[in-house]
């Protein structure tokens, strides 16, 4: 397999709060390859979005990235560690190298400027096009993502568009500077089911055409099954299991992954049976359980070791896992 475009290694992002330091991202590692989709899955609050923001270097105060490496391999030139880049150079990464599609297309646009204005901004900044050329490109992009009547829509305001159209515009905006890595942070959560399917189709289509490396953040295992090539399952700021989507779905190894897969509704289930759920709820990151963070909810807990010791990451390069059931015996 080729070298990954983007490698995240042992990423740590912390927030300073009144309760103490919250480790929102606590040692996440994964690789993203050109033309492939990495699905990042986990429950709310597991650090998915913060991971995305950490990669782009836009974690808001009081949060900050405290450790790890984010290696980007640009098309030309040697690999760079994004965490070591000066602010100005990092701004030139955002847009032309890595772009982000957000969860809420309404709130993620400013209501005071036309969508054309908001798309053209990045084009003019990074590609140095004239106003007219940037506008032409914006119209082209809108056309590409399937916005009807793009030359008219370009002058409209976000509140004049439907949710699905807004998300298409958001994708057009993210693609405006030809990024090589696209991070989609729950891109379909705020949309209704049919629109969700259309947006996912669009993302897949664009990825194939442009050879994008896509990081798809979601809490929906169904979306992962449909879209992803590789999966990283996150729990409390860590990737507990990573691997190719086929292996994860056919032979999940981590008890958390198994629990997540059990809780997908299927048409084969017996009518009127309860959908399995994961017992308990995610602990607040400020009082992370000792040992394996999942042990209080784990159905396959082995012994005291799970409570006392942190399972190390084991396994092959592409399939890694953090669980004492699968090695890491100290």
């Amino acid at each position, binding site marked *: 397999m080729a070298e990954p475009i983007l490698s995240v290694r042992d990423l740590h992002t912390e927030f300073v709060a009144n309760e103490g330091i919250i480790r929102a991202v606590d040692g996440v590692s994964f690789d993203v390859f050109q033309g492939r989709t990495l699905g990042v899955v986990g429950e709310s609050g597991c650090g998915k979005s913060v991971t995305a*923001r950490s990669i*782009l270097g*836009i974690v*808001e105060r009081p949060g900050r990235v405290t450790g790890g490496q984010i290696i980007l391999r640009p098309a030309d030139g040697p690999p760079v560690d994004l965490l070591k880049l000066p602010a100005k150079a990092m*701004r*030139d*990464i*955002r*847009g*032309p190298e890595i*772009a*982000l599609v*957000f*969860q*809420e297309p309404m*709130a*993620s*646009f*400013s*209501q*005071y*400027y*036309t969508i054309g204005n908001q798309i053209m*901004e*990045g084009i003019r*900044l*990074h590609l140095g096009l004239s106003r007219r050329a940037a506008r032409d490109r914006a119209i082209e992009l809108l056309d590409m993502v399937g916005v009807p009547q793009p030359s008219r829509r370009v002058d409209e*305001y976000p*509140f*004049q568009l439907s949710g699905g159209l807004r998300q298409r515009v958001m994708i057009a*905006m993210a693609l405006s*500077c030809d990024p090589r890595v696209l991070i989609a942070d729950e891109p379909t959560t705020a949309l209704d089911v049919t629109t969700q399917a259309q947006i996912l189709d669009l993302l897949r289509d664009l990825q194939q055409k442009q050879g994008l490396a896509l990081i798809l953040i979601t809490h929906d295992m169904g979306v992962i099954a449909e879209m992803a090539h590789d999966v990283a399952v996150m729990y409390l700021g860590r990737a507990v299991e990573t691997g190719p989507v086929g292996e994860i779905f056919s032979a999940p190894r981590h008890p958390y992954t198994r629990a997540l897969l059990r809780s997908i509704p299927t048409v084969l289930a017996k009518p009127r049976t309860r959908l399995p759920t994961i017992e308990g709820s995610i602990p607040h990151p400020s009082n992370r359980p000792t040992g394996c963070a999942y042990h209080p909810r784990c159905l396959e807990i082995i012994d005291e070791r799970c409570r006392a010791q942190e399972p190390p990451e084991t396994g092959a390069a592409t399939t890694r896992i953090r669980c004492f059931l699968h090695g890491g015996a100290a």
Partner: protein
Amino acid sequence: MITFIVRRLLLGLFTVWLISMLAFAIIQLPPGDFVDSYIANLAAGGASVSADEANAMRKLYGMGQPIYVQYGKWIVRVVAGDLGESMEWRRPVAEVIGDRIWLTLLLSFAALLVTWGLALPIGIFSAVRQYSVADYIFTLIGFIGIAVPNFLLALIILYAAFRYLGLSVGGLFSAEYALAPWTWDKVKDLSWHLPLPAMILALSGTAQLIRIMRANLLDELRKPYVVTARAKGLSEMRTILKYPVRAALNPFASNIAYLFPYLVSGSIIISIVLGLPTVGPLLVRALIAQDVYLGGAIVLLLGVLTVIGTFISDLVLMWVDPRLRHQMD
């Protein structure tokens, strides 16, 4: 959109009409009719009015006729520019008010510019650097500004300027220009005198506006669209100025209307303290002296100015808020 403007305009006219009735009510308030008190006033001053003159005046003002006829006669004259006679000054009201209304407007406008010119940048800075040392210092100054009455500050400045600099900072003109006709030199003189009262007048408004701007912007800074802008690779300065500041400014457009009468009425005491030739002190004197036509005229003028301010504020709001513009189509 045009129907909206027309509707607003008609509503404004209706409001002005109501205000005119209020002003007329003020004129009618004192016991006895105006001519009686006018004659009594003249007599007190040693002059006398013949019975013919008194009757002519009664006829002019429609005394003895139903109230709506009196109002009708009055409003017709007002529209024609005749605001009646000031008892105290024994001159037409229009002449007494004269330049004062324009000087009042000028002073208010200058104060508004100072308010915005100081409050917006400081408010933005305080929000972006929330809880920094500078933010605390501005907060402290802001609370002092809200707490200290303007006139007290005016007195202190008057005293300090006189005691330590030997300057007399009162008034809007130097003595030699106060009654002179308008010339370039007089305008220059005015521009020297204007900043200090404008700044004193602007103080409490500025302090409040800093707090409002800071709070508005703190709200906006947490919105997802700010993250979007950052993710586009915009510089922090440009991100903040283009997006959240733009949104935080919106409430200010709608505040113009409220700020305006506040500045006019807030300036009364300062105008008295600093001896400014504005309408504020005139209104106070007119009310004390029961100078009904002068008082009524000033109330009417202030009311009309407020309505105009509201109308302008509507237009500005429509201009700055695309949502509003499109709702109306």
